[in-house]
């Protein structure tokens, strides 16, 4: 399938894309993290909050480190390959003490020394003097916790001509010392552009199936807020003024007042010279993809995202091929698994107004779902007949080929046409379109 001529090499990247589509101004902005940050701030795009910039030694001496929060990151503005980044995990035993992610105790003096090293150019290109800054630390999203070690995973989205072309999820490992750089030993997972689900994974250049430190599977992980991640990548590329670049995005998790988990995608950095190993993680050639979208007139960000999703879907499922959304009508046939795992065709109604999927009691009994072992819990509710007890059972069904495993409440629907209602809890990733004929139909 993939041919050598489909793969993007260094020569083609530099000659055909980088030098042609990236302006000098854009490259300069991408080379300096501080400049990128200020552009993002002006464009009102989310990025980790900047606490302090250090331009010279005097500022370092005067700065009061004790006012810093317990967790933060110190970065060089023009560091190479993630070098010189110090991640502070939490406050230490006493004031003016911190603990880094790899467990070392840090004092104010250690931080000062590190910043002075950065200013002296220890981590910059060509040993030139650099600037340092302290910013908010992006925490590890709970979904990535089992498949990352110490550092924060990030999603790299390659954007060309306003179209997201390829993406990977980089997971820091013990070997990479918590850094998300591939050459240091981080794992990179290829991502299905349509759905944001991981496909293959590589470490260095060889394929891996499980995360080395926790032995968790690496395929099939859904990146949260995929749509927003893509949108942020494209708008960032536009704001910085780069036609061909990779935008690295991390998901900052936070709990809302109601205790729910919400995450915000944030731009960590923009790379005007993105690496080529993303092709290994995705098992696909980048050159072919770039050639397909080169010169396409893309009017809006949304359109660019849709083009990317449609063209570069990686998985075989309908969901992926249709660009991340499955279109369904109001009345659909679903396949429900009985207790033996056999599929049975059943008529169902889609009801986004209801919360929990429900199934007819008679049908559930027939399918063997009322087995005591399959009853998850019982739920009481008030009806015209007073208090009633209803069972909630485990159900596995297929809607448009997508497997959905859920809990359904059992109710009496024997007098109705359709013995099952699919409710909004199980409709994630579906787009409901009322078809002609359905609009006038009563039940």
């Amino acid at each position: 399938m993939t041919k050598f001529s489909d793969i993007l090499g260094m020569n083609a990247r530099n000659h055909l894309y980088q030098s042609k589509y990236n302006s000098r101004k854009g490259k300069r902005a991408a080379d300096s993290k501080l400049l990128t940050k200020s552009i993002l701030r002006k464009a009102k795009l989310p990025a980790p909050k900047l606490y302090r910039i250090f331009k010279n030694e005097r500022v370092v001496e005067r700065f009061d480190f004790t006012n810093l929060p317990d967790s933060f990151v110190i970065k060089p503005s023009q560091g190479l390959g993630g070098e010189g980044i110090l991640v502070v995990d939490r406050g230490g035993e006493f004031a003016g003490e911190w603990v880094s992610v790899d467990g070392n105790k840090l004092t104010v003096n250690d931080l000062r020394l590190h910043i002075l090293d950065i200013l002296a150019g220890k981590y910059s290109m060509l040993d030139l003097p650099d600037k340092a800054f302290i910013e908010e630390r992006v925490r590890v999203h709970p979904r990535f916790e089992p498949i990352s070690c110490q550092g924060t995973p990030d999603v790299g989205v390659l954007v060309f001509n306003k179209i997201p072309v390829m993406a990977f999820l980089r997971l820091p490992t013990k070997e990479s010392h918590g850094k998300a750089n591939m050459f240091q030993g981080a794992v990179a997972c290829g991502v299905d552009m349509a759905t944001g689900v991981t496909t293959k994974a590589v470490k260095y250049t060889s394929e891996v199936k499980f995360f080395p430190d926790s032995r968790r599977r690496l395929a099939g992980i859904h990146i949260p807020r995929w749509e927003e991640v893509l949108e942020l990548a494209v708008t960032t590329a536009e704001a910085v003024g780069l036609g061909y670049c990779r935008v690295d995005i991390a998901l900052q998790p936070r709990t809302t007042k109601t205790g729910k988990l919400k995450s915000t995608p944030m731009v960590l950095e923009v790379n005007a010279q993105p690496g080529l190993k993303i092709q290994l993680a995705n098992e696909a050639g980048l050159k072919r993809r770039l050639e397909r979208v080169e010169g396409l007139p893309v009017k809006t960000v949304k359109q660019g995202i849709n083009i990317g999703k449609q063209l570069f879907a990686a998985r075989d499922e309908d969901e992926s091929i249709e660009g991340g959304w499955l279109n369904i009508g109001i009345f659909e046939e679903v396949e429900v698994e009985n207790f033996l795992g056999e599929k049975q065709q059943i008529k169902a109604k889609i009801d986004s107004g209801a919360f929990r999927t429900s199934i007819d009691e008679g049908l559930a009994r027939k399918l063997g779902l009322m087995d005591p072992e399959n009853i998850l819990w019982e739920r009481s509710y008030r009806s015209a007949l007073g208090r009633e007890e209803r069972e909630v059972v485990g159900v596995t069904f297929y809607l448009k080929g997508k497997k959905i495993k859920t809990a359904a409440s059992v109710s009496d629907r024997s007098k109705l046409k359709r013995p099952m209602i699919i409710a909004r809890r199980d409709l994630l990733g579906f787009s409901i379109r009322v078809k002609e004929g359905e609009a006038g139909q009563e039940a």
Partner: protein
Amino acid sequence: MKRIAIIFLLLFLAPTAVGAAAAEATASAEMATSAGTLSIEAVTKQDITERTSAVKGRLEGYLDEKEIGKLSWLNFLQQAIRQAVDKGVSANTIVLVLLFPLVAGLIAAARHLIGLTGFGIFVPAMLSVAFVATGIKVGIIMFAVVFLGASLARKVTERLKLQYLPRMALMMWLVSALVLAVLLGAVNINLGSLSAVSIFPILILMLLSENFIEVQTGKSRHEAVQVMIQTLVMAIIGAVILKTNWVQKLVLLNPEISLLVMALLDIYVGRYTGLRALEMWKFRKIIK
């Protein structure tokens, strides 16, 4: 900056004859190479001609063998070369100047067609010229000595926490001391060719040691070793080409065509956008 410094140093150290030879060479061979390159060539010429006078005779013999007709667009360089050689310019200098763009072009091709990174174009090219002057075997020994000295010096000076320039100077001190020890020691262990090496290749190697140190500080050990090996391989290939008789004869007798071919090679390499050989190896797993 450093390149210019080295070139000036060599110019300064070279006897006055070099200046004249370089000027002659510029006039005779309309080359795209810089004045600095010429002086380096001139310097190395000295080494070769001084020690092996047979080479001089051989190259001039080639010139005498070939009959060239009247001055035309096809042989203007050949005419000029003969005129210069008759007036005393060494044929060796001319050959090295003619071959230098080939070496440079091959180093560029090694980067863009094969994927060997090395240290840009300057270090391997200088090394190959140094190797021609010393002989490859002795050259590699000297290279190893300087490289070891540089690594050792880096380790030692790292602890002292010095400013950049004094630190470099101290490293040079250590490298020089080591080279001196080897030169003096070589007499005792009967490695005559080692102690017969002249100052210029040694100086080139010692000045390049700064680059060797830089690559060690800037990159991981694995990468640094890789860069060094790739540079060494390129330098050896360059030196072999510079020394090969039939290549020398070919460019000396057909300077117009060979220069044109080299320029075309450079343009081809510059326009090549396909995969490099090492990239093909890297991505072989996703080819189906």
